[in-house]
């Protein structure tokens, strides 16, 4: 490609960038805060309920998370969760209900290609990286903890 063509390309790329609509950061922030916050409040409320029933703190936490995952899955199946996310952005994507949504939405999408090679193999198509790098991050954090503890002793 000659210099003139490269120049035209670069000018065009800049023009597209300059004309691109600006993301509404302020609006997105308060919406994400409201949706994410609401999910947090629901989680806290559930935790309060389970604390009275479950024998240990750990078990109350686990039951709360399972309930939130269930809520996320049901809202996805009803076709509501993507609308909440369209409005609330990261406020709906980041909490554990969003994680449930990634798995359930993919499972729904690929159900027609069969239970094994469709649903079974592709339900983690979006959630997979979260699991892989979540595990890797957990492992590295564990290593760091052991190293620091040994240094302190």
């Amino acid at each position: 490609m000659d210099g003139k063509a490269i120049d035209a390309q670069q000018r065009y790329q800049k023009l597209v960038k300059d004309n691109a609509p600006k993301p509404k950061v302020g609006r997105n922030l308060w919406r994400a805060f409201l949706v994410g916050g609401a999910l947090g409040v629901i989680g806290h409320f559930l935790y309060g309920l389970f604390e009275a029933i479950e024998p240990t703190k750990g078990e109350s936490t686990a039951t709360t998370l399972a309930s939130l995952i269930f809520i996320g899955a049901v809202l996805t199946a009803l076709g509501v969760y993507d609308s909440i996310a369209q409005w609330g952005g990261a406020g709906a994507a980041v909490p554990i209900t969003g994680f449930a949504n990634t798995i359930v939405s993919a499972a729904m999408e690929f159900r027609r290609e069969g239970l094994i090679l469709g649903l079974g193999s592709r339900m983690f198509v979006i959630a997979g990286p979260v699991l892989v790098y979540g595990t890797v991050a957990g492992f590295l954090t564990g290593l760091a903890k052991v190293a620091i503890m040994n240094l302190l002793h």
Partner: protein
Amino acid sequence: MTSKRLGRWTVHFPGSPRLVSAASVVGPKEGEGPLHSYFDAIELDPMRGEMCPEAAERRFMEDACSRAIQQLALTSEDIDIFLGGDLLNQVITAGFTARSLQIPFIGLYSACATFGAALALAATLVDSDWVTTALVAASSHYQTAERQFRYPIELNVQRKPTNQWTVTGAGAAVIAKQGQGPKVTHATIGRVVDYGLKDTNDMGCTMAPAAADTFLRHLADTGRTPGDYDLILTGDLAAYGSKMFRHLVKEAGIGLGNKHQDAGQLIFSPQQKVGAGGSGCACVAVVGLGYVLKQMAAGRWHRVLLLPTGALFSPVTHLQGESIPCVAHAIVIEG
């Protein structure tokens, strides 16, 4: 033998192949749009009673094809060749439709410019008497396109303002020399243009340079100006891409006046929350065959340039960091 080539890149069709029938079938969202009264059929169930969206898309294409054939009181037995395409891997919508139609078939792919490629080839075959009747069709479906190019439908992704909404529907037309209908007079096949853009959330701006390239070469070959056309209809550049297209054409010293419109902007209204506008193979097909042909028949426009635009990437090349090559074909239709 006289050459049918005009200039360097354009062909003209002295034998006057005509669009002797045309049909457009769309989904519910398109049916709520500003052009609803121009479509031949609006299906309220985008799934068409099928279990999977791919099968539903085939129903749209099959319906459009049958309608186009039946308008002429013909059967598929009477059609010599079927040229069709869609966005799906292995061009399955057109291939499976051809299985039902039992017409000799060539599947085409030019992404959202497929309808333009089909029309140009059909006109060439009919003009040169290789075939007497050719059926062309193109389809797309919101759900099949999302699934192939983006994410599961119910996933928590926020749409961006530059995102476009894939049109659910199909357009089909029969090209022949015998019969009534507007003539296909010229075609300029586009070359692939890549300005190094990589953002799949902004296909309009990515495709605009290809549209401008084909358009300018078409004008140079034919010696025409935008003033020679009543309408210049780009395929699916949508709001941001159309702005870029006008800019690039203006930069080349050519004024479009008020001649340019974009099918992606016409098919939906801003209230329908579709982002920048419509897209997909069906977008220019149903707007062209529904809205434009009916307006031409009513005498509003006489000579129209269709400029369908397509992005020739796949999710694989996108993940591998490649930029997006684009193409546009220009077809002149005259009442």
